[in-house]
């Protein structure tokens, strides 16, 4: 019997320990990076079970590929992982080139590496800005987007598009780099290492950031492999695996770079891996810049690669080839390939199956975000509600790629 009269709404009620509550997080939640819905079963503030619900952005892209000619498919790939469009372009065109058994000129290969590594930095910058924003550090976002803007300007200078460049073509590139491009990349390169150090000053030593990330979202190396994690998420769990190293493409084996690996298996480790990766990409860009020598950027395959604009006006056969490629497309020998590359988020694999015609019979994208997200329930078991936000941020998902 208490002496004080407590109004009923403030009365302390003994809640049975097994009382659980199911809440829906998203699809409009800002920290779900798009339209991801999580069905969370909570016990107090502790997450008992998290079930991702995806498909809100499903646009049937894989179906669409089957109705488009091979070269028309490139623009669809841009719209999957819209933070790493050049990586998607590369995976797709390389898969088709493998079917066609095309040889790509060296300059085109080097430019592909150069652009993809710039794109990787840009993708990691968006991840860093939004990840920090989710956790509560707002100013990092502006620093990241300042640097990303420079990269987008470079991509725009080369391809004409910022978010959807479609710069790579089957057999090479859309066109050569504009004049003065090397100088502009050099300018970006000069300031970038200082910018990464700035990010470190803003976040790495920050005690709140450390408390929010260390020991959160732990997944062991064994589980990470079992769940199919790839990219920085896998390397954050201490597995030294990078497709650029183990199955090299675009002569990545000739570039010198380290594959950052962290042993802590938590959100912090994944943060450190990506921070170090940006510097490695910076190194690769510098090497690629040094290798740029004049030369062709398109393969010598007139039935596949569009001819030069000038040649079209003066040569009859160039005009015919141009007409045939645009109007009818080109036939790709029957067969199937699975081509994996190291996207900014992990192993980006493209499966292309051809039945011999100008349109693919089946195109399937193994999106790293899709697979990484499937491990979220495993990582978030027993975590606090607020940690979910940190874990989603550390997975670096893009819903466009998950839902396709």
């Amino acid at each position, binding site marked *: 019997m208490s002496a004080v009269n407590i109004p009923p709404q403030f009365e302390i009620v003994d809640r049975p320990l097994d009382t659980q509550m199911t809440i829906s997080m998203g699809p409009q939640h800002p920290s779900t990076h798009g339209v991801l819905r999580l069905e969370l079963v909570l016990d107090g503030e502790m997450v008992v079970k998290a079930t991702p619900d*995806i*498909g809100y952005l*499903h646009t*049937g892209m*894989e*179906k*669409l590929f*089957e*109705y488009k000619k091979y070269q028309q498919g490139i623009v669809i790939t841009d719209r999957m992982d819209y933070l790493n469009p050049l990586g998607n372009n590369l995976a797709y065109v390389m898969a088709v080139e*493998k*079917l066609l*058994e095309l040889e790509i000129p060296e300059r085109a290969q080097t430019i592909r590496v150069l652009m993809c590594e710039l794109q990787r930095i840009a993708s990691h910058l968006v991840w860093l800005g939004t990840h920090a924003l989710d956790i509560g550090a707002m100013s990092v976002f502006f620093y990241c987007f300042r640097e990303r803007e420079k990269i987008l300007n470079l991509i725009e200078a080369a391809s004409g598009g910022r978010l959807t460049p479609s710069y790579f073509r089957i057999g090479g590139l859309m066109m050569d780099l504009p004049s003065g491009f090397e100088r502009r990349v050099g300018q970006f390169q000069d300031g970038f290492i200082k910018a990464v150090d700035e990010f470190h000053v803003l976040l790495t030593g920050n005690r709140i950031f450390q408390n929010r990330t260390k020991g959160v979202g732990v997944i062991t190396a064994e589980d990470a*492999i*079992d*769940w*199919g994690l790839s990219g920085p998420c896998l390397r954050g769990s201490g*597995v030294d*695996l990078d497709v650029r190293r*183990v*199955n090299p493409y675009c002569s990545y084996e000739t570039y010198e770079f380290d594959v950052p690996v962290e042993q802590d298996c938590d959100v912090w480790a994944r943060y450190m891996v990506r921070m170090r990766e940006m510097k490695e990409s910076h190194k690769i860009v510098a090497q690629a810049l040094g290798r740029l020598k004049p030369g062709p950027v398109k393969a010598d395959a007139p039935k596949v690669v569009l001819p030069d604009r000038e040649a079209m006006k003066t040569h009859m056969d160039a005009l015919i080839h141009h007409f045939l490629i645009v109007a009818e497309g080109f036939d790709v020998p029957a*067969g*199937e*390939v*699975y081509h*994996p590359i190291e996207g900014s988020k992990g*192993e980006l*694999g493209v*499966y292309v*199956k051809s*039945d011999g015609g100008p349109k693919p*019979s*089946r195109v*399937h994208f*193994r999106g790293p975000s*899709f*697979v990484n997200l*499937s*491990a979220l329930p*495993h990582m978030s078991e027993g975590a606090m509600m607020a940690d979910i936000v940190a874990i989603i941020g550390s997975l670096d998902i893009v819903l466009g790629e998950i*839902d*396709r």
Partner: protein
Amino acid sequence: MSTGTDSDNNLPESPNRDLSQRLTPSQLVTAFGRQHPDWVSEIREALGEITLVVPAAHIVDVCAELKSGAETQFDFLSDICGADRGVEEEPRFEVNYHLFSTKKHHRLRVKVLLNEGEAHVPTVTGVWRTANWHERETFDLMGVVFDGHPDLRRILLPDDWQGHALRKDFPLRGYEPYSLK
């Protein structure tokens, strides 16, 4: 046992482990096919990729063996994707499992061919947990049923969606406007 410096000169080394490391993936797969003749119906090599065609009934055994085998060690399931070979074709569907080894760094495609009437495959979620979402996606878009899957629901399309969108007889533009009921 010879030490490392001695064995550098003479190529045929004695320890089995070193020999197996030199086996190319195609040799490995051929050896695998010889060990388990019932499990492998065909081995294809094209464009630098190896495909192992397996009867649907044995897919779990094959995957478990490829994962645990000392020489194969395919511990990483990259991808599962279904494909429709065409309405007229028989077997109409195929399911491709893209395997990778994080230790040996080689890749392999395991393929299962399915007739239209019996588009059922046993699930491999018991071998790799990552198969869960891949199989759900294949079920959702291709209509292949994975028997024994712990949670076989649609994943990308709504629960009450009719049909399977990636089948060749499913039109690009729908039968009728879809409305949320």
